[in-house]
């Protein structure tokens, strides 16, 4: 990585990752590094391998070659639960709440692997952060509006007490007015010291809050730079950002 960052050891790292679905080659020699407390984003079009990157980070897809490194330890053959316990948590695409369970049950499931005493106080923290969620604790999460579901999804992920939050297309399927609020929320979480790895199609918005970014094209990292540089990159502007300001 060319970036100079505060902490020397990355929290989560890809070293020459290749993944395959059957014979199909998805990720090709991907190198990534997420440092503690960073806000970074991964951009890319459809079928560029964004979701596979997330699944590989979380251990739901095993790479064919290369190393996934968590806190300096190679975790290729460690299960998802091992990584979740060590602070890697995902907010899935389209929120994917447990729709028939209540809001409270969803939040509790976020803390499934925790058995420390902090769970109750973390619940309180989530209620403070999202007063709307507290009002609807015993409601089935499937009956919430899109914006509220996003709050619960983020809350559920925060309940795992993460050090890095993997967000899969956080603005997908949200009303335009909510997209802005959502990015503000992401920044707020970031300011509390949680590293954020965001996969987005909304490149403009994502880069405006991110420190760094990568651009993924058909499984290969084609651009790797600071957010400002990427925003200014003419190639990227042409292919992802439309003609500048949308």
């Amino acid at each position, binding site marked *: 990585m060319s970036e100079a960052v505060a902490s020397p050891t990355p929290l989560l790292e890809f070293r020459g990752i290749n993944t395959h679905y059957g014979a199909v080659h998805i990720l090709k020699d991907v190198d990534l590094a997420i440092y503690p407390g960073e806000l970074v984003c991964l951009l890319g079009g459809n079928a560029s391998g964004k979701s596979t990157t997330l699944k590989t980070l*979380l251990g739901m897809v095993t790479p064919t070659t290369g190393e996934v490194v968590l806190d300096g330890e190679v975790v290729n053959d460690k*299960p998802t*639960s091992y990584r979740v316990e060590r602070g890697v948590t995902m907010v*899935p695409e389209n929120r*994917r709440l*447990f*729709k028939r369970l209540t809001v409270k049950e969803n939040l509790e499931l976020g803390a499934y*692997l925790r058995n420390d005493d902090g769970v109750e106080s973390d619940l309180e923290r989530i209620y403070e952060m999202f007063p709307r969620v507290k009002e609807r604790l015993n409601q089935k999460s499937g*009956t919430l509006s899109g914006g509220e579901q996003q709050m619960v999804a983020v809350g559920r992920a925060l309940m795992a007490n993460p050090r890095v939050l993997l967000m899969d297309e956080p603005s997908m399927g949200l009303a335009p007015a909510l997209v802005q609020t959502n990015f503000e929320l992401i920044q707020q979480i970031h300011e509390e010291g949680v590293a954020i790895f965001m996969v987005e199609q909304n490149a403009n918005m994502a880069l405006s809050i991110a420190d760094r970014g990568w651009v993924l094209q058909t499984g290969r990292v084609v651009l790797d730079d600071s957010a400002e540089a990427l925003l200014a990159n003419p190639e990227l502007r042409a292919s992802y950002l439309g003609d500048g300001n949308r």
Partner: protein
Amino acid sequence: MSETMNTDEAGVLAPARGAFDQDWRKLVNWGLICALALIFVSLTDMPDKLDKRVIVEPLLSMGYLSLIWIPVALGNFVTREVVLEGMTQHKKGLRELVAGVSVGAIGGAGLALLIWLLDTRDLSDPLVNWNDALLEVLSFGEGVGYGAIFWILASAGLGLAGGAFHLLSAIANRLLLAIALTIVLTASLESALDDISEGFQLEWLFEALFEKKGGLSVQGAIILAVFAIAWVLVLGGQAKRGRAAVTARRELSPTKVNTVGLVLIAVAAVVLPMFLGRLTNDLFTNVGLFLLLALGLNIVVGLAGILDLGYVAFFAVGGYTAAIMTSPSSPGLSPELPWWVAIFVVVFMAIVAGLFIGAPVIRMRGDYLAIVTLGFGEIIRLTVRSDWASGFTGGAQGILSIPGADIVGVATVKGTDPQQVLYLVIGFVAIAIYVSWRLENSRIGRAWMAVREDESVAEAMGINTVNSKLQAFVVGAILASFSGAIFAAKVGSVFESSFKILVSIVILVIVIVGGMGRIAGVAAGALVLVGILGGPNQPGLLAEFSEFKLLIYGALLIWMMLKRPEGLIPNVRRSRELHQDEFLQDAWLKAQANDDDDEAASGEVAPA
């Protein structure tokens, strides 16, 4: 015509429509449905087979009841309207009656046609019930012409009655329904009531209601009708209020247990078997055995969302293990352990079987999983029957002379004493209910529900989905094996034919009809299906119905899926979810309308 109309709901009713202002196409459709239903029921031979089961002597038998409810119901449905906000509601009047009569008459004409065909054609080749006995019952032995005209008129009259329900006030409707249900239910429960009344020294009451040769007496029917009216008028309101209170409380704290109810049930479970006769005790034992199975399947399907269609396999494992361990005549291995020791072996074998079947199956999802489990269910049974295993299982000869269940220091429960077996079953059901309830509200229960809802997200939360599904499978297997072990001790023998796929299906129907994921619902399902209609090989209260059991199971299942997918005793939350489309759409439309207004307003005001 408008004098006779329903003035119950005062307010903004539009005047009644003309008697012939009908949707004729709809009428004919419903009429044809009525005709087809009547012909279908006739050809299942219900009218003939159930004629001997009298409801009110000498007026009505189950056989005729199986026909006459059809025109009444359809004559009512044809003019039933779903009333939504903003729809014009007309007063009810002659129009509803005309519709009812027409539907009934078309239906009766269909039946008349069948009578004529029965007389002139012989279609007994594909239709096994196409015979003179059916003709005899349908035409009352008075000839084709009489039968045909009778049914057209009777059916039209019944359709008229069905339509007339729309004109009656709500309370009158409720009264009539209560009377009909009370009479039919009491008559259906005749044999059980006979049995129970002996235990409670209430023979005098039984004799007051029922004729000696079977069926309610006219006098008995009148007593019941008066009772039903009193019930509705005096107690109806209170019961409703009580239920509303319970529902409200359950919504507030869904996991809180109703202590009073629990104590009452516990007392009843201890005391009741003493007063019940052989027949009812045996009946409840069968209900209990299936309840045990259904509680297990409820964990697998209802909580963990694994659609296991071969669940009978674990019932078989329990039954055969108990048989081999306890019976002196089991071929091959015959340790002749006492039953209470054997039960530990049973649990062990259930765990082994659960892991053995579960491990390969659990990695599949949805339809694939269902089909593979279906296969495993049969594989276990066929293995038991095969030459390879018959050295241990007796093959088609089964294992005989299984001694009763010997409970150390307490008693030996013999199959010949249904009361003892019932106590044994109640004990195990109590354990199963407690385990289900504790698991449901535990960490592992929550993991199961998460896996059921969304497996990959559950995995992303750090839940080991394979393990938790296997755990559900094994817990389900253990509960089923208990049922199998008691079954073996009760019957005294096991044969592979007791473990056919039909058992799996019946258990699944119990879980679905009762209300998936809810213990009380599963209990209600077992009581209704196994208790009243009967299990796959066990007679229920309506022994005469055993031939039509599967037909009724199927009809009930379809009806439940369409009208009450949440089951008989629903989970409050789940019921709201299943019906939420209806009011969510409403809410959405309203919100939409508001938004449009807001936007329009703000759009105009904003520039200023």
